[in-house]
């Protein structure tokens, strides 16, 4: 009797000690995402479960999309391999919790950058990889030509999004009534809209183009001209790890700088011999700009080699080379009339 009691006590004490030490080490790990990623051998990337052009597995199960490419760029910079990424599909309402708790290292899931998401949720946006705005899609046969004619309409939306909030704001500020039908995933929201439960479906304009492809008769639906919000979409990371924040941020900027400097997947090795100092610094032929990030000198070279520059990624996933055929618009480079502007590598 006594022996078992002692044994029990000892095991409890051991369990407590283990719990306490693991808790302590969990605290210590907060700051070192890069080392964790390296020892684990892959990046955990929170992804959209299925948004064409941004994050979606293709028919062979390979993930593709603009957001997916960003995670692949980070993977290429660290591992010299774009496939050391584990994509974790997340619904809109679960995504931030997954990032906060450390289940994922980076969230690249067309998330809108807002003040409260940084200040209250403890996250940081590393940049904007897609400038977007919220729009509405309706059936052509409703004969609605403006969102202002939607008073009294039923509107399907994905819950846990800025979309849900902008919708409330827009209808309130225009003194219109509406009925919101909120679903956990965009897939269900679109299905409900398609089955006639709602008069309109609302999400970011890029999402509208992507989701329209899922409808039974895509041609019977039209996107209304109003864009009712600013939706700066971009990847986010946890606060408290500046090195990791910088890596994700500069993976995007490397792709932008490559496009601006005319460096593509195809002419990469040619450009390595370029006399242009900016190109040489970017590709690691001059200086060692990767070291301070905890990476190798050829970090940006690897990104372009495996993923391509921003323009290539855009074109392949959402632009002319894709089914979405979205124009560059605001997402063109700053010197071509858009807003994409990357700080220089130097």
């Amino acid at each position: 009797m006594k022996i078992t009691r002692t044994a029990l006590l000892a095991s409890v004490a051991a369990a407590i000690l283990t719990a306490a030490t693991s808790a302590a080490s969990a605290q210590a790990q907060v700051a070192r995402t890069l080392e964790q990623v390296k020892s684990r051998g892959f990046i955990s990337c929170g992804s959209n479960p299925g948004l064409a052009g941004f994050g979606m597995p293709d028919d062979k199960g390979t993930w593709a999309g603009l957001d997916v490419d960003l995670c692949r760029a980070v993977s290429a910079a660290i591992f010299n391999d774009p496939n050391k990424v584990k994509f974790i599909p997340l619904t809109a309402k679960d995504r931030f919790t997954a990032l906060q708790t450390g289940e994922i290292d980076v969230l690249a899931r067309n998330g809108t950058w807002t003040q409260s998401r940084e200040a209250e949720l403890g996250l940081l946006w590393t940049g904007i990889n897609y400038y977007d705005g919220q729009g509405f899609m309706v059936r052509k046969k409703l004969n609605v030509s403006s969102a202002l004619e939607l008073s009294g309409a039923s509107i399907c939306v994905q819950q846990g999004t800025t979309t849900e909030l902008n919708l409330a704001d827009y209808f309130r500020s225009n003194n219109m009534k509406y009925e919101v039908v909120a679903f956990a995933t965009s897939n269900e929201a679109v299905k409900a809209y398609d089955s006639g439960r709602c008069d309109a479906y609302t999400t970011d304009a890029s999402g509208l183009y992507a989701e329209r492809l899922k409808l039974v008769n895509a041609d019977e639906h039209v996107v209304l001209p109003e864009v009712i919000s600013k939706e700066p979409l971009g990847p986010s990371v946890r606060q408290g790890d500046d090195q990791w924040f910088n890596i994700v941020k500069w993976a995007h900027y490397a792709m932008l700088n490559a496009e601006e400097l005319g460096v593509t997947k195809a002419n990469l090795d040619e450009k390595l011999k370029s006399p242009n100092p900016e190109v040489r610094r970017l590709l690691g032929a001059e200086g060692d700009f990767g070291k301070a990030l905890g990476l190798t000198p050829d970090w940006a070279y690897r990104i372009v080699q495996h993923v391509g520059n921003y323009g290539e990624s855009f074109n392949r996933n959402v632009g002319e080379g894709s089914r979405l055929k979205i124009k560059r618009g605001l997402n063109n480079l700053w010197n071509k009339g858009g807003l994409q502007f990357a700080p220089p590598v130097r």
Partner: protein
Amino acid sequence: MSDASQVQPPRTPFLRAETLRAAAWQALMLALIGWLAWSAFDNAVENMRARGVPTDFSFWNRPSGFDINQTLVQYSSSGSTYGRAFVVGLLNTLLVAAFGVLFATVLGFAIGVARLSGNWIVARLATIYVEVIRNTPLLLQLLFWYNAVLKPLPGPRQSLALPAGAWVNNRGLFLPEPMFGPGAEWALAALGAGIAGTIALRLWSARRRAATGVGAPVLWPSLALVIGLPLLVFALAGAPLTWSFPELRGFNFQGGVRVFPEFVALLLGLSLYTAAFIAEIVRAGIVSVSRGQTEAASALGLTRGLSLRLVVVPQAMRVIVPPLTNQYLNLTKNSSLAVFIGYPDLVQVFAGTVLNQTGAAVQVISITMAVYLALSLLTSAAMNLFNRRFALQER
């Protein structure tokens, strides 16, 4: 001899006394568990602070900014708080759970009895129902019902007219809403008085039956009290009732009472699913009453109906009620699958949108868990009280 019997066992020193040691071990154990719980809590709070995640409940009184379609209480995106959204979600959960329990019980009893029917077809159909429903996932059934409810219904402009000014379309069922004028409260009071009178009448009748062997007629006076009296008072008050009929205005019907398709689909799915389990419980309960009981009842000259009511069912209920409680709890907890078909229940509104917007994951999930725990404990307590009526009376 006498000496030996009076020898006292040696007095145990205080520190080695069995009771003290036992208590000390217990206290130590408790302290360790307490410390473990506290350090887990402290560690969580510490880590949440380090990550900039909110650790308090201050979000409760902040404006919510999002809308909900089905609200049983006043709610708007502009003026309501997250706390109010919680109340809306909770009430929606309670609404679907209450109706679900009611429908599942009625349907479950009917099917349970049907499985024992002498009619081959009825019994087989009931068996097929139970086997099909019990052996497919509930989520799949919910999605099926949602589409089965939505798909065949027309849009608002081609709505189907139902009798008495009601309409149905793929936005829901629109019923005329009774609008009571002044004086209606007297009819309500009369209804209350009628119900109280009926209860008193029944008690008095039972007492008289126990004393004299002859009860008083109960059924007709009860109906007169519960239905006749309020109607009479209502007519005397000048029938202060108007109906608000739903009308097609703009995109949809306005006015009247609206039953949302999400609610119907969820209710249908939960009721049908749980009814299959209840049917099996009812069947088991009835089978558990031995045949001798029925035979004895008919030997006493009880009719078939009376022997069922007085002999079989009370004994079957002993077996039925405890597992029935489980099914009620399951139904309530399963209602959280509402999130997949867009019904704004507690999980969808509070553990979904509110959690996402505030980032207070630990707080929101704790509250949600506490709510389901409280609901389950309350249901259990109520069912235990109910069970006492049927349990064996041990004297």
